[in-house]
């Protein structure tokens, strides 16, 4: 499979009053064509910032300060704003969390779709509109021809998110970054959209980065999972490996706090403590204040290593990885 996106040691920092904050800290990711990568972590762990960095949408006072992002074999961190604009919405698209907020409330759907086509393709309004209608049909919007003339407030939340997905699909991108697109929706609609996205990605060979804080969403969808904590990837591997044999104590904690995995009547287990502020991270492993396996060794930052040699496909950033419970 060919690599669509290869991110190496990506760092994105914010200059704040309390000093420089690394919201994304040496993040490395690889995504192949047609693959779904789940990016999981608590609120504030830097998932969205990773997505914005790839899109070139980090706004001041934030800035990508290091690393490389190779999209379709091309280094994009050094592109001019104009070249980056030409890629956005064309080779790589992004969908956001709240469908009530992502569509412009005062512009008709056709306006918002046609402009997305014409930003990248020198085609007539009529052709762009046809493409918009086809995209709406693909994401399961009934009578798309009429719906093109509607305004966002005339759609339900689920339908609006479908419109946003249709917009992302318009220019047949190689990669779609979906930033918690189902979190704001009903569970049933969430399920439908997850299923449809998966099908669409498979059919078109589009790679997908699915950002969520909910491991159960990723379980049925992703091929691989990367777990983020305080701006860093702390564990990475195949979805089944991560869920059944997590090696990082933080991943274990995330799994235990998913309701459906707990027995009835048993209390939900929460990860003790709170996500630390990025300005007050401990020296060494960022998780040590909340970790029950922490030792003196953890005061030195752990490198990303193979979790359980010789099995190479699961990697972890921890001095004392968990043993394989199924072994």
């Amino acid at each position, binding site marked *: 499979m060919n690599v669509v996106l290869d991110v190496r040691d990506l760092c994105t920092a914010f200059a704040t009053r309390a000093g420089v904050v690394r919201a994304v800290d040496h993040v490395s990711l690889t995504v192949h064509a047609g693959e779904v990568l789940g990016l999981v972590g608590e609120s504030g762990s830097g998932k969205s910032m990773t997505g914005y960095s790839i*899109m070139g*949408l980090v706004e001041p006072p934030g800035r990508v300060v290091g690393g490389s992002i190779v999209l379709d074999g091309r280094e994009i961190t050094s592109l001019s704003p104009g070249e980056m*604009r*030409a*890629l*956005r*919405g*064309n080779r790589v*698209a*992004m969908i*956001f969390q*709240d469908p009530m*907020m*992502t*569509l*412009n*409330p*005062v*512009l*008709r759907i056709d306006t918002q779709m046609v*402009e*997305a086509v014409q*930003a*990248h393709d020198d085609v007539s309004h009529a052709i762009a509109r046809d493409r918009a209608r086809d995209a709406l049909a693909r994401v399961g919007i009934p009578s798309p021809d009429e719906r093109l003339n509607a*305004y966002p*407030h005339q759609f339900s939340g689920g339908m609006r998110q479908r419109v*946003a997905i249709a*917009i992302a699909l318009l220019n047949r991108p190689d990669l779609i970054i979906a930033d918690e697109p189902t979190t704001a929706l009903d569970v049933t609609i969430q399920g439908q959209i997850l299923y449809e996205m998966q099908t669409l990605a498979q059919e078109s060979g589009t790679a997908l980065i699915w950002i969520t804080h909910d491991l159960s969403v990723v379980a049925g969808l992703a091929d691989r999972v990367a777990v983020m904590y305080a701006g860093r990837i702390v564990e990475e591997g195949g979805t089944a490996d991560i869920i059944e044999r997590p090696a990082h104590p933080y991943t274990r904690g995330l799994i235990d706090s998913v309701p459906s995995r707990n027995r009835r009547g048993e209390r939900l287990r929460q990860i003790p403590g709170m996500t630390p502020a990025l300005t007050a991270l401990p020296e060494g492993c960022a998780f040590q204040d909340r970790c029950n396996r922490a030792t003196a060794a953890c005061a030195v930052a752990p490198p990303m290593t193979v979790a359980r040699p010789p099995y190479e496909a699961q990697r972890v950033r921890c001095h004392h990885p968990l043993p394989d419970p199924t072994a």
Partner: protein
Amino acid sequence: MLVYLIRRSLQSVVVLLAMSLLVFVGVYAVGNPIDILINPQADQQDRERSIAALGLDKPLWLQYALFLKGALTGDLGNSFVQGTPALGLILERMPATLELAVVAMLIAIVLGIPLGLWAGMKPDSLSGRSIMAGSILGFSLPTFWVGLMLIMVFSVMLGWLPSNGRGETRLLFGVPVSFLTVDGWRHLIMPATNLALFNLALMIRLTRAGTREALLQDYVKFARAKGLSNARVIGVHVLRNILIPIVTVIGLQFGSLIAFAIVTESVFAWPGMGKLLIDSINFLDRPVIVAYLLVIVTLFIVINLVVDVLYSALDPRVRLADAKG
């Protein structure tokens, strides 16, 4: 829509009635115009004849009733001073005031919105901060003082621009206007700028605040994620949203611009309604004062109606009540 218009018209009539009653009673309470209008040496007989001629011998309620009767036929009474219909006097002066107010509003819009957009996009830059500092001046300096300073600099010291009057006018649909002649513009530009200053500052602040807020919205980020150019993101996505409050404020301000024109008209001796009002108040010329206020209120009502219609056209989420009717 029709039901909406009918209801609005009925409301307007009630407002006009209340307004006229207030002014009637108000001017009555302030003083007796006869004391000002009649030669103090006149004898008692002359005096009584004049009072009767102006209808001031009747009780106030009857005067008001007679006024209402006349108003129904479009007759708002004759000026105590000039003896001609008060409404005619007002309408004769109205084009000058409207011209001044429209030009002032255009100056405020054409300069204010781009400056506000710029300041909103670059709030921390030197230019953004300078624009904001300028707008604070526009808010805080008193209109009459700025007017006098303008005259000092451009008329007295530099001698570039005339300081009073409308200059050469030309008829447009039978109405004399200044903006069709060069000399008219030379007379118009200074009072219009003076009158525009407050609204220019208001436009800048409003546009800047709206831009800053809109730039934080997800729909702007999503528009950027689609790969739209910056010009399109700002010029379409941001502007279309902030235009909604801006149009509302423009409408509301246009009314007060006409009202505030009184000061500017006095400073620049601009022959508009405002100057007429000041003179009429000096003579307690009640018919003219009442007519002026009724005309102003009517203008406010019409403007508000236009704003409502525009508002619903700009914001698809708003439909005028009873739109189906």
